[in-house]
């Protein structure tokens, strides 16, 4: 395609039209997110679809979530040791790794990894169904795609990310423990008791609330981009990329607000 043809193919829209489209997108996303929750209380409930999604999302993401948090825990211990050694305080590595992983890195990393794997999967699957008229066929056959496709994915992601994060947190602590004992020569019992005793209710609560929020974001964003797909296979590719980017950015941004909110509630 010549440069002139390419430039002429670019759609130019006015700022007001651009703003209108963005507001429309936010409104559509909000409606989809609200309906995905409301459908939990309406019949029919698709338990088999939900369990299938739990297997795909939860078990399917298990290895990469555990591996990523394990090595992050190990890296966190190594980095902490470098700084703490200057103050002769390497014994508190367990505390640092524990707080860092459970409050922040465990939920965020699990969220980002699952977003990368599953937001894209949902967007491409639902996007393909849109361009091949399968969603229209489902509606024409009297089935609500939001109930059948979106709600099971949202509930499955929320539940499975919660448990993936708990397992990931443990593996993160284990990664820190491997570094602390094998490389830094610390006593394993000392590391684990430090890591355990430093935790208070608000740390654990913060670490368990975040995956619920992130799971909701991952699934609703993936489904929204999938169901908004336009323009054939190229559109499916675009939706997939946009879903991953949007879910990851939202997770990072929302993490700040959730953290601040919980600090305000618990005071620490």
């Amino acid at each position, binding site marked *: 395609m010549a440069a002139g043809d390419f430039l002429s193919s670019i759609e130019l829209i006015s700022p007001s039209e651009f703003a209108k489209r963005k507001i429309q997108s936010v409104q559509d996303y909000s409606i989809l997110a609200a309906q995905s929750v409301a459908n939990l209380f309406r019949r029919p409930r698709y338990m088999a679809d939900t369990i299938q999604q739990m297997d795909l999302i939860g078990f399917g993401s298990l290895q990469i979530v555990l591996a990523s948090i394990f090595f992050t825990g190990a890296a966190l211990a190594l980095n902490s040791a470098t700084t703490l050694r200057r103050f002769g305080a390497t014994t508190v590595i367990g505390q640092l790794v524990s707080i860092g992983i459970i409050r922040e890195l465990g939920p965020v990393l699990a969220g980002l990894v699952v977003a990368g794997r599953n937001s894209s999967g949902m967007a491409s699957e639902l996007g393909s169904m849109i361009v*091949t*008229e*399968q969603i229209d066929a*489902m509606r*024409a*056959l*009297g089935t*609500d795609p939001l109930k059948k496709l979106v709600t099971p994915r949202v509930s499955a992601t929320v539940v499975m990310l919660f448990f993936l994060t708990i397992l990931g947190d443990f593996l993160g602590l284990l990664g820190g423990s491997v570094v602390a004992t094998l490389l830094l020569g610390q006593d394993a019992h000392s590391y684990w008791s430090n890591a355990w005793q430093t935790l208070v209710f608000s740390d654990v609560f913060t670490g368990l609330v975040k995956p619920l929020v992130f799971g909701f974001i991952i699934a609703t964003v993936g489904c929204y981009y999938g169901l908004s797909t336009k323009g054939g296979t190229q559109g499916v590719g675009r939706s997939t990329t946009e879903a991953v980017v949007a879910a990851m950015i939202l997770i990072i941004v929302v993490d700040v607000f959730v953290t601040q909110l919980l600090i305000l509630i618990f005071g620490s």
Partner: protein
Amino acid sequence: MPTPSLPLEAPAQASQQPANDVIVFDDVSIAFEEKVVLDGISFRLPRGETKAIFGVAGSGKSTILKLALGLIKPDRGHIYTLGEDVTQMPEEQLFELRRKVGIVFQESALFDSLTVHDNVAFRLMEEGTVDAEEIDRRVREALRFVELENTVDMFPAELSGGMRRRVAIARAIITQPETLLYDSPTGGLDPVTSTTIVELIVKQRDVYKTSSLLVTHRLQDAFIMANHYFDAKANQMRLVPPGGRIEVPLAFLMLRDGKVIFDGDLHHLARTHDEYIREYIS
């Protein structure tokens, strides 16, 4: 060339749907991205009749089917499907109505992650009121109707284009809906497979007396439907004998520039003097 106005049958004007009509379009308009696709069209589909819709690509033929099912909403006008104004119904109520109407999409739109059995059974499984044995029996019956009983455990990707269309027909008819909507069911198929599909449509029309809207590019398919009837005893399509007493319930609807330029039966179509239509059918 000016667009002629040849509505040989009076289009529906009243906002009340006559009891004998299964679908009524009343002054319906719709535009996509400022391009007007349908501009105030009105027509009705009487119970038991098949109406073949013609027009060039992009003339809004498939849009009519989606509008009739409430899958999209018009910008103006009213659409009555089985007595209900689909333009005024919320999506939740439309799901109920759609269960009484079958549709065969242009590219079949089979669920690619489900087997042929589960595709055909989809509606029954969703309703949740029929036991597994009965579902299996009805799926096999529907597949036997389209002569594809041996594909029950296959996935759509393993089927040819013609077989997928036939499975889509089986999926549409499994609940014996009052109305069927066919979107280019023979498009892109070879003549032999097309004739098989046409025969199935004629069979559905003549044996089960199902009302239907049929979107097609292939005029010859519609002419076959207009000149043939289904002999249930012989289980095959037969030519209507000249001067015979067999009446074939088939009408033609032609679209041009978003308007209905012809709505009538084969005899009216053959007698039309409109140059555009004559060129189209020649």
